[in-house]
């Protein structure tokens, strides 16, 4: 399987697959399939996929470790950038479609509505991660610092889940599912860290995603 995943055409195929949700949205928009409140539908749809891609990107390393399909590591940056892209589209649809660039109102909302505050913080925190996603930036920062910076995703992902949870009116089924998946993905990392500290070498420092350097002083 790992060999299959290493074939040259697979990564472009995953890229196209990641564009799928956007294409589906465009098709629904053009065919009038967004329902009575298309603006709300667009914002929620993009927000859902932003959150899903964050979780997908976070799932790469645990999944890779468990299956041994190391080829998956090649997709991680791309999936992370797709998460960023969907987050930006979600944010811009809020700014442009929902608020129609009413910056005063947007500013007031960000300050006043806690779920929007959290969402906004998540967007801002994602920017440095996207900017430092190139090979050149990775080199410039150096592995350790780059890795430390990109651990911000462990803050961003809970912010995203909380943002969704707090905006839901009553039925919290979906946010709970997201939270459970996130807890699983973060829990796996904590377990990996504990195992690592216990002398088990299944998690190597070179694996980047699992928090290995500067372990807590437990």
């Amino acid at each position: 399987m790992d060999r299959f995943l290493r074939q040259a055409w697979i990564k472009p195929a995953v890229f196209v697959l990641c564009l799928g949700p956007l294409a589906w949205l465009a098709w629904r928009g053009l065919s009038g399939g967004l329902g009575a409140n298309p603006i709300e539908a667009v914002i929620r749809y993009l927000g859902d996929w932003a959150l899903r891609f964050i979780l997908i990107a976070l799932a790469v390393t645990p999944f890779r470790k468990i299956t041994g399909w190391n080829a998956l590591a090649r997709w991680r940056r791309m999936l992370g950038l797709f998460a960023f892209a969907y987050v930006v589209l979600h944010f811009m649809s809020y700014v442009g479609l929902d608020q129609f660039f009413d910056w005063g109102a947007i500013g007031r909302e960000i300050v006043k509505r806690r779920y929007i505050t959290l969402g906004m913080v998540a967007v801002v925190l994602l920017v440095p991660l996207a900017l430092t996603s190139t090979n050149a930036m990775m080199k410039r920062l150096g592995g350790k610092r780059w890795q430390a910076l990109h651990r911000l995703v462990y803050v961003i992902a809970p912010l995203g889940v909380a943002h969704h949870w707090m905006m839901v009116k009553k039925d919290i089924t979906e946010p709970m599912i997201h939270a459970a998946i996130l807890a699983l993905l973060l829990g796996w990392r904590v377990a990996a860290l504990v195992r690592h500290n216990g002398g088990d070498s299944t998690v190597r420092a070179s694996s980047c995603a699992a928090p290995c350097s500067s372990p807590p002083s437990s």
Partner: protein
Amino acid sequence: MLIRTGTDIRSSEVTDRSLWLDRRRFLALGAAGALALSGVPAHAASLSTVRGKFAADEPLTPMKDVTTYTNFYELGTDKSDPAQLAPSYFTKVKPWSVAVEGECAKPATLGYEDLIKPHQLEERIYRMRCVEAWSMVIPWVGVPLGDILRRFEPSSKAKYVVFTTLQDPERLPGQRRAILDWPYVEALRMDEAMHPLTLLAVGLYGEELLPQNGAPIRLVVPWKYGFKGIKSIVGIRFTETPPRTAWMKAAAREYGFYANVNPAVDHPRWSQASERRIGEFLKRKTLPFNGYAEQVASLYSGMDLAVNY
């Protein structure tokens, strides 16, 4: 790409698009279908009505939007759920009966016909403002609630009217999950209930209510947020004290007893200053009492509406 679309669209273009869609529907469904969708009441009207007072002079929200974008958690929490689930669950609406009880001289349980038939059905075109900051203009068909309530001769102890939705997880599968404390309960103060604007609706667009809109009998209180408009009513009770409504039990800080449309009092999580009229691109300013202040503001004189939200 999306942003560019946003800046480019003017409201005039949105209107054009909806016309274009209507033309598509016209082609797809034939003349009869298009007439039904565009709201011409003449032909398909299964209800005989007279044009009532208080007709809002604003373009009607298309029937398709009114019947597919609804909050009715008993049929799912997504606004597209009720229209999708109703045909497989809430298939048989009638026979239907409503129990009228409590502080009144003539309590009775009446079948749908006995409750509604004695009255002349009116068409009332009302603005509907959802607490979620969207709105519609809907041609309801119904009877002034006060006319019906008077038949049961409420006593001087009757200070409130409490309404209850059907409890039936077979037909209302949303009730299988404890999202709200079922059955849904709503209430009005007696003077609100007797106000000539308050309607017990049995139809819209000249036809009987579809399940997703609260068949066969629902409440319409146009100056209050939509959630006060309890659907599929089976119980009406006159009481001396106000009940805790379903949404008050769920989140008292966010949903009060009065729930009067008020741009000055925000929902804790979002602004109520403006709203998106379904079918429009730009938001419009929300009016106090949803534009019915002239008729109803006096009901609340002397009350602090920020406290009594």
